C-alpha cells in the first residue's frame, strides 16, 4: 500500500493536475517536497512510492534527491541552519560569522551538534545579499530567512527554538534505518 498516496490523496491529485496527464514525471519534485515535509528527509520507502505514482524508476527519483541540495536522504538535526558565505555575504563578514557559530556549536559545516538538534551548513547564495550575514532555517520543509545576524542573535534564537521544540533530536526517530548509506552532496559529484 502506497502510504504517501493514502495519506495525502487530495494533495497528490492537486499536484498531478498541474502537469499534462502524460507528463507524470514532472510531479517528482513536488512529491519529494511533500514527503520531506513530514520527517525532514526523504526515506527510501517514500522514494519507491513516488516512483510508483509517477511511473519512473526509484533510481531516477533517488538521483533527483542526490542532485538538489535541499533534498535530504538522511535524518540530521531538527533544525538545519544554513549560512550563505558567497561573495556578497563574505564581504559583509559571513565567513567569520559562520566560524563563530561553528565554534559555539562545536560542529563543522555539514555536521550536527552533539545533542542532535542543529545541523549547521554552509550554503550558496540565498538572494538576500544586502542583509548579510544571514541564515536560512529549515525545519521539516519550512524554510525561513533570518537576516542581519550576529552570532549572539543567532544563538539566542537557537536557544528559544530549542526550548520551543523541547530539543528532541530527530535522530532518535524510528525511521533512521531507512536512510540509504551514501549521498552525493552536489550534482557534479565534486564534493
Amino acid at each position, binding site marked *: 500500500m502506497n502510504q504517501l498516496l493514502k495519506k495525502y490523496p487530495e494533495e497528490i491529485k492537486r499536484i498531478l493536475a*498541474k*502537469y*499534462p496527464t502524460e*507528463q507524470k*514525471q*514532472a*510531479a*517528482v*519534485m*513536488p512529491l*519529494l*517536497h511533500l514527503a520531506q515535509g513530514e520527517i525532514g528527509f526523504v526515506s527510501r520507502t517514500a522514494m519507491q512510492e513516488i516512483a510508483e505514482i*509517477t511511473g*519512473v524508476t526509484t533510481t*531516477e527519483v533517488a*538521483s*533527483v534527491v542526490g*542532485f*538538489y*541540495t*535541499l*533534498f535530504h536522504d538522511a535524518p540530521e538535526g531538527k533544525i538545519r541552519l544554513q549560512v550563505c*558565505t*558567497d*561573495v*556578497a*555575504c*563574505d*564581504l*559583509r563578514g559571513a565567513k567569520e560569522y559562520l566560524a563563530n557559530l561553528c565554534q559555539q556549536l562545536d560542529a563543522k559545516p555539514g555536521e550536527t551538534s552533539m545533542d542532535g538538534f542543529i545541523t549547521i551548513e554552509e*550554503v*550558496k*547564495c*540565498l*538572494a*538576500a*545579499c*544586502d*542583509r*548579510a550575514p544571514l541564515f*536560512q532555517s529549515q525545519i521539516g*520543509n*519550512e*524554510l*525561513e530567512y533570518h537576516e542581519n545576524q550576529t552570532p549572539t542573535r543567532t544563538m539566542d534564537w537557537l536557544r528559544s527554538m530549542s526550548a520551543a521544540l523541547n530539543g528532541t533530536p530527530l535522530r532518535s526517530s524510528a525511521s533512521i534505518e531507512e536512510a540509504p548509506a551514501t549521498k552525493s552532496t*552536489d*550534482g*557534479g*559529484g*565534486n*564534493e
Partner: protein
Amino acid sequence: MSEFVLLRHREIPGLNQLKTYVANGGFSMWKKVVTSNKPEDLVREVKASGLRGRGGAGFPTGVKWSFLPNDIWPHYVVANADESEPGTFKDRELLEFNPYQFLEGLMLASFAVQANDAYIYFRGEFSQIAKKIDERIAELTTKGYLGDGLYATSYSLRVHTHVGAGAYICGEETALLESIEGKLGQPRLRPPFPALSGLFNKPTVINNVETLANLPYIIEKGSDAFRRHGTDKSPGTKIFSLSGRVNKPGNYELPLGTTFRELIYKHGEGIINGATIKAIMPAGASSTLIPATETALDTPMDYEATSALGSPLGSASVIILDETVNISRLVNSTVHFFKHESCGKCTPCREGTYWMSHITSRIESGKAKKEDIDLLKVVASQMQNKCLCALGEFSIMAVMSGLQHFRADFDARLES
C-alpha cells in the same frame, strides 16, 4: 527617481493586496486584451518598447515571443523565479511586495503567445513565497481573472507554481525546463531552442520575473511611455541590486544608463568607512572584475556600455569591492561557488571548476608557489568557450580578470 515602474510598492502601501493593486490601475487592460483577442498587438507593442530580458541575457522580449511557431501547440510560458546569482535579490522583492504586477505580466505574456498553461519556477529557498503566490493565483481564479473561458471568450489560462530544491544551474533556461519535468537540472544541447521545443517538447517562452513585471506598464501606458526612461538601445528602468562594501546596500530602480558613480555614491552612500573603491562586479559572481577607475565609475549602466567595459550587465547585481578586499580570497570564493553548482554534465566545467578550486584553496592557504598561479591561468583558459552552458564560461570570469588586474593580491599569498 520620481516614478517607479517596478518597485511601486515603495510608494503604495499594501500593493501586495489585490484590492489595492486594482485600485491603483492593476489589471486595467486584462479584460480588454482578452476580449479584443489580438495577441499580435501585444507582441508588436512589446517589440516597439525595446524591452530586453532582465534575467541576464538582455535579449529583446518581443522578438523572443515571435519565434514561437504557429503550427505546433500547445505553447507554454515559464516565469524564471530561480533568482540565485550571488549579488541578485531583486525578484524576491517583486514577488513579495508587488506580486500582482508580476502575475499580470505573466498573464499578458501568456496571452501574447496564446499559452493556456503558464508555470512559475521558484528556487527552492523561495518556497514560502511560492505558497503565497499559490494563494494569489487561487484568488485571481475565484475573481475571474484566471480560469477557463475568460470573459466569455474561448481563451483559458491556468497558472501553476513549481518549486525547485537548491540548484543554481536551474536558472539556466533549459536546465530549468528539465527541472520542471522532474529530472536533474542539467542544460540541454541547443538547438532546438525552447521557442521550438521547450517544456514537454512544446514551444516555450521563458521570461525573468522582472521582465514580466514591466509588461503591465508597457501595455497600459504604451511603448513610448516606457521608452521615456533609459537609453535608445536599453530602454526602461532596471532594478540594480547593490551589495558588497557600500554603506547602503539594497535594490534601486533606476533608468538604464545611470552611471556606476550615481548608484554607488548617491544611492549606496559610498564605501564603508570611507575606504577607497577597488573593483566592481556588475553581474554578480559571474562578472568580470572591473577596476574602479574614474572612467569605469562614469560609465552608464546599460547593456552596451557595460559590455564595452568588459563585463555583461547581466541581471545588474552590482557587487562593490574596496581596498580591504583581497582579490585572491574573492576569486577563491567565486570558484568554490561554481564548483559546487556545476551540474556535472560537461567535462570542461565539471573538471575545470574542481581543479581551479583546488588551486585557489592552495593559494589562500599560503602554501602555493608561483607555478600554481600559472597553472590556474592555464586551467581557466582551457575552459574558455568549451562549456555546454554559460555557468562554465562564467566560472572563469573573475579568475581571468582577477589575475589580469590584481595579480599582486595573488602573489602576496604565495609561500615565502
